[in-house]
């Protein structure tokens, strides 16, 4: 089971990164303000450098503590060594998205993606030699990596949605104009609180149950799904009693 997951990840994570790059090309072409915010690029540059890490400062329209690689920006943006890349100052202030969230969201997402890539490839390499089951470090890292896809997906969405502001339809409809006239602050606050409460409740329990499943570890019996498994219920693959056996907990059934 573990091996199958690692092999699949070793193939799918690079594919995902490639598709992410294609998505970036699309954003570069059609939503230049978002691209500039993601890159943290305030002024036009030719050739453009790629900011690895910085603290964007909207008041001074510059980046503080910036670590950047020259020319890489042009390569990533337009696949050429000296293309001109647009900066945020090209757009009037009311058309610029907030910079902090897309900037850091993008970097967290890519970081998670690269971490998953490293784990998948290292895990695959080790398991080919049969050395995976004995390598505690990699096993622990794989176990602890289960939030990474969720974080990557969520930060990716933050980048996409916040970066597109102030537009709902880029260049056509502003979010302020798209808002329904009926919606009061009170109603919106109530719905936000209710959704947050419910999702926190469900995710807390969900993580707890997933943690219990993962703690049972790669057990030989789990290679074949037990007869009790039903396709429409993903959690049924691990039967409650086999988990309990592995953890030596008496079940109250």
């Amino acid at each position, binding site marked *: 089971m573990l091996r199958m997951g690692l092999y699949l990840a070793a193939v799918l994570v690079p594919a995902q990164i490639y598709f992410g790059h294609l998505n970036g090309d699309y954003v570069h072409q059609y939503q230049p303000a978002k691209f500039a915010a993601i890159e943290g690029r305030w002024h036009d540059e030719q050739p453009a450098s790629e900011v690895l890490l910085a603290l964007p400062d909207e008041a001074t329209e510059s980046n503080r503590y910036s670590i950047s690689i020259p020319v890489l920006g042009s390569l990533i943006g337009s696949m050429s060594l000296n293309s001109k890349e647009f900066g945020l100052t090209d757009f009037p202030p009311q058309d610029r998205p907030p910079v902090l969230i897309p900037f850091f969201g993008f970097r967290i997402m890519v970081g998670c993606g690269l971490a998953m890539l490293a784990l998948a490839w290292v895990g695959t390499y080790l398991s080919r030699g049969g050395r995976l089951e004995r390598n505690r470090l990699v096993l622990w890292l794989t176990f602890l990596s289960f939030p990474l896809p969720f974080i990557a997906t969520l930060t990716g969405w933050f980048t996409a949605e916040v970066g597109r502001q102030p537009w709902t339809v880029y260049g056509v409809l502003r979010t302020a104009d798209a808002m329904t006239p009926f*919606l009061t602050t009170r109603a919106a606050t109530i719905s936000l609180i*209710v959704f947050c409460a*419910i999702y926190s409740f469900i995710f807390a*329990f969900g993580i707890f149950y997933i943690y219990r499943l993962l703690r049972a570890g790669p057990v030989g019996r789990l290679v074949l799904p037990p007869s009790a498994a039903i396709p429409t*219920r993903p959690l*049924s693959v691990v*039967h*409650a009693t086999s988990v309990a056996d592995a953890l030596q907990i008496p079940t109250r*059934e």
Partner: protein
Amino acid sequence: MVMFWVTLLAVSILIYLLLDGFDLWIGMLFSVASDESRKRAMMSAVAPIWDGNETWLVVSGVILWGAFPVVYSILMSAFYLPVLLMLAGLILRGVAFEFRNKAERMRWIWNASFAGGSLVAAFVQGLMVGGLVEGLPLSDGRYVGGEFGWFSPFAVLCGIGLCVGYALLGACWLVRKCDHEVRDQAYRLIPYLSAALLVLLIVVLVYALAKNLGVMARWLDRPYLFVFPVAGAFAAIMLAASVHRRQDARPFPMVALIFIAAFGTLAISFWPYMIPFSITIEQAAAPHSSLAFMFWGAGLFVFPLMLLYTVINLTVFRGKIAAPGDHY
């Protein structure tokens, strides 16, 4: 094209009512079932199909949003809080299916979620129908009633009525799918539920007459609409007969017929208005280009696919449930 989408919307809502009706009620019945094996039997009766049943609610919402955006905006504005409650109920109920089996000490939380979520969702759906029938304060095509403009005794009555209706559907489904005590208990419930539903329907009718709701004038204008209640009455008689003779497979289709009759009574009596009595179907529809765009994708492919998988789902799982083991 507009007629195509109206038909699709009506069919989606109807299928949703029939399919999710019974699995919502089984949730409500959960709190009444005393022991674990009965609870498992009830879960088994719906576990393979409830997911697919929910998709019809999603498709109804999507058709409304894409094809009839004016109605969608009015309904979502008017029923903002009820829809929120319904979603909360549906989310909790759905999650309870999975988590119930994983929990041991905490199982009561998921039982409560399952029962409570189902009750809230069913009640709110009835509430929305009631509020819609009674009439929403509109001005210039926009809702102006405030957050609780929909709240009224009539709406609450419709909410309770829908809960009872779903209860009847659920009891008939259990009769069809389960054995022994669960089935017998369901059989005992059916006469009470039918009587309660009848009483509620009469109260609703009297209320509508007393308040002189616009819908009543409709009826007197169009006597051919009476074919629906008559069909419903006929189905009710068949229901009583099949319960009396203990024919397990018969009650559910009969109650389904009653629901269809009720739906026809309500929906078709509003024709051609979508929001009684202000917005007609033509006014509410999206521009032809949107409708055509949706047709080629959703109308031609997705909708028949949904019908297909629903039929397959119900056919594959048509028999009685196996003896409840430790899984479902």
